[in-house]
């Protein structure tokens, strides 16, 4: 029984908590007093998903890949004028509705990964809580507004041949 109680370890444990106490008193806590002081998340943090509406073709890939089924897309086809005179009118998709329900979203980012037309982007914004859960359904105007907060892509390594991607603004 006496062997089981490791006294030096017990005292060491007291030392750890006491050191933390002194450090917090002298150098301040690790936490941030949130509403007064805002934390700046890393630039690639997954805060909220922004939509670049012009790039979206209503292809439904994001909505189908979404594990929570929280993306709602509606669109219609219309005839655009032909490219060359005398040609056939082109069929194009127009986006009527693009909603993301953030009360369901689990921020996996599969929609951003899967989008073939660079229409969805992560932004590090995190202050969009609502009093009513229904207000967490962001429509395409709101999702487009998030585009302003999308950080620029980082530069590639020096000497890279690849075309540098830019965030559409």
């Amino acid at each position, binding site marked *: *029984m*006496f062997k*089981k*109680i490791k006294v030096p370890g*017990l005292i060491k*444990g*007291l030392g*750890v*908590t*006491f050191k*933390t*106490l002194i*450090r*917090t*008193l002298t150098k301040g*806590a*690790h*936490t941030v*007093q949130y509403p007064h002081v805002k934390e700046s998340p890393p630039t690639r943090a997954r805060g909220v998903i922004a939509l670049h509406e012009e790039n979206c073709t209503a292809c439904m890939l994001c909505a189908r890949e979404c594990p929570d089924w929280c993306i709602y897309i509606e669109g219609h086809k219309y005839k655009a004028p032909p490219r060359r005179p005398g040609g056939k009118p082109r069929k194009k998709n127009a986006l009527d509705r693009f909603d993301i329900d953030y009360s369901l979203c689990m921020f996996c980012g599969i929609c951003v990964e899967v989008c073939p037309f660079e229409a969805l982007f992560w932004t590090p914004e995190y202050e969009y809580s609502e009093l009513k859960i229904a207000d967490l359904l962001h429509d395409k105007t709101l999702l487009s507004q998030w585009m302003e907060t999308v950080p620029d892509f980082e530069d590639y390594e020096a000497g890279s041949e690849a075309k540098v991607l830019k965030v559409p603004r």
Partner: protein
Amino acid sequence: MSVVLADLAYWQETTIRLVVGLLAVLLPAGTLVYLFLFKMMSFMQSRLGPMEAGPYGSLQLLAEVGKFLQKEDILPKAADRLVFKLAPFVVLISTFLLILVIPAGPDLWFIDVDTGIFLALAVSSISVIGILMAGWASSSKYSLLGALRATGQLIAYELPMVLAVVGVIIQAGTLNVQDIVLAQATGEIFGFGGIGNPFVITQFLGFLIFLIAVQAELTQPPFDMPVAESELVTGYLTEYSGLRFLMFFIGEFATAAIFSALAATLFLGGWYVPGLDVTDNLFNVIGPIILLGKTLLIAFFIFWFRFTYPRFREDQLQQLAWKVLIPLSLINIVITGVLKVVF
């Protein structure tokens, strides 16, 4: 207090006793909760704790009490209604009775009985009944298991606590708490009487055993098996809500404050500080402040252990009491007795 109140009418004396008693229980308890539970625990976890209500969150406690008062008083359908409702009062009564014997100055006490410390240790075990009542009346498995664990633990740790106090009693030669303080104030350590004889020096083993036993009596970590939230939700508190839960909460921290005060009185010399004459009337004014300071010192250690150590397993907990603490305290008594006779 008897001397101070000698000239007043009975009803005046009773009113003053009631108010002072309430203050003596609630103020240290509130101080402990704010200073240690809210602030020290947060600092030890590298955070700031409550900061919004009042300067540095000092009014947080009032906000919490207000919150608890608003909550619904839920009574389980199968509960034993009367016993369920009475249980928190029984726990609180044992807390309020404990404050009676602790003197805060040469003339400041509630009752001056010759068996003071015996009375304190006796009424402190009333809370076991309250806890068992709460656990049984809740008609919940979690509550019952928690209450049974609490009962087993409180009874196991009552013994080392009493036996640790016996060492002090032998050295002081009295059961009267006021006389124990005086014995420490006027005592000498091997002929040196400069700082009196606080029993923490000569009874250090007893002091350690008393602290460990107090920790277990308060069912605080590392001895919080009865309210182990990972297995028993919150033990005997599971079914309580609102005001009744608040009463258990107050009871827990008021008992922590009073046990700290008891430890300060028995081992650190109570309201006395070296350098002044024991009979000095000044102690009637500064005595309570000195006692509060010593109480906070003891409470600091109790809460420091609370925030540092992980929980004991049930069998380890019982082993520590029966196999380590009780033999140690018996040895302590024997040594104290022999030395008392020799010197």
